[in-house]
């Protein structure tokens, strides 16, 4: 990736980095931040973050540490403190349903950011398997997102395996569209999408 993400102008508005005391303004501020987080993650195909807004997993082959910082703006010398960070993520999780704890029992593991919802991910996955004529075939997780010659579309390439499993379990299996085949060791040996 050669061009850096362009933050919207409001990202350089100094008060955006201070939690606003007026409730109406605050809710607007959290909406603005949520939009920034979603756009940023979509641009860099980041599917999960730490609770401090550091990217954890991206589909792109980039050095995540080299990305511009989300919650810190060096030009105007402002940083989002952890209290406001928590409010932003709570807004994304509970108000907008655009994020979710990776493991609700261990919040420190970070959160998934849903610039694409898991239902949308499931649809992409299903469409790919359908269009490539592989419905009913047993596929490995590798073949679903990584394999070079199975025609995996750009949108699914290198999707985080943990998220992939979540999509399979929470959407496709529930819809009766997928089955998991487990190995003797209890790992996922293959997936059948029907």
């Amino acid at each position, binding site marked *: 990736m050669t061009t850096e993400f362009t933050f919207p*102008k409001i990202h350089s*508005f*100094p*008060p955006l*980095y*201070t939690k606003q005391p*007026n409730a109406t*303004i605050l809710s*607007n501020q959290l909406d603005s931040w949520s939009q920034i987080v979603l756009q940023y993650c979509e641009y860099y195909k980041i599917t999960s973050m730490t609770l401090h807004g550091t990217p954890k997993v991206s589909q792109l082959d980039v050095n995540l540490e080299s990305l511009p910082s989300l919650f810190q703006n060096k030009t105007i010398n402002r940083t989002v403190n952890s209290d406001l960070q928590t409010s932003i993520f709570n807004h994304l999780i509970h108000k907008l349903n655009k994020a979710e704890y990776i493991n609700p029992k261990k919040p420190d593991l970070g959160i998934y950011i849903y610039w694409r919802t898991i239902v949308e991910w499931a649809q992409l996955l299903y469409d790919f398997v359908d269009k490539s004529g592989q419905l009913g075939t047993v596929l490995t997780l590798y073949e679903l997102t990584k394999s070079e*010659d199975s025609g995996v579309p750009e949108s699914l390439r290198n999707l985080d395996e943990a998220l992939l499993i979540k999509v399979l379990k929470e959407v496709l299996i529930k819809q009766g569209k997928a089955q998991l085949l487990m190995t003797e060791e209890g790992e996922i040996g293959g997936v059948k999408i029907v």
Partner: protein
Amino acid sequence: MNNNWHSDAYSKLGQSLNERHTDQLSTQLSVFQSALVNFAREHGEEIKQNSEFRNKFTQICQSVGIDPLDLLLYSGSVSKTSKSQSSKTQSDNYFISLAVRIVEVCQETRDINGGLIPLKELVSIIRENSYINIEVTESDVEKSLSTLNTLGKGYDILTIHDKKWLKFTSALGGSISNDQKKVYELCGFMGGYVTYRLLRDNYAWDKLRCKTVIDEMIMNGFLWVDSQGEGAEWQYWEPSWISS
């Protein structure tokens, strides 16, 4: 290896076909849209008189993504300076539809700016939001507001520091005090913000007066708080900075 190359070539071909198709469609769409605009200008009278015709026309507009209000604005803006009788109604229509737009923008931005918006910003939002290029000017907005105010007060023009603002009061009821005006005036000088110290130095206000005005303005949504200013002094920003 060979297989790989083939599938690659196929997907490239598919992509370029898709792109070409999209290009063609969007050209067709914009041709159709501009045809509609012309049609509305030529047959404006008929559209107005025949309600069935008008319904159909509005449906077509919506299905291709043109807001019928834009058309009204557009056809009005062409004739707003002319003096003949038919264009008089058209120009009335223009100021009425402009008033609708003004109300829309004020509602949409109220949560950010507390109902106080620079006239310049208002005009540029109206221009940006419409599909057709409409020459709206600040004086058009002022004229249009006089139409609005016949429906009851609520929209006022203020001049603060040589800059015109539209104050939209129906939401909050209150009006802007002189002290609040002065805060905005100083914001204008300082590139967007004030601090207690700046207020003291410029207006010789004591701390209590500063606090009363600032707190009130925060409550009304006219100012945003910034606790990370230089020297740990709190700054209070006026939100029109975001879009100006």
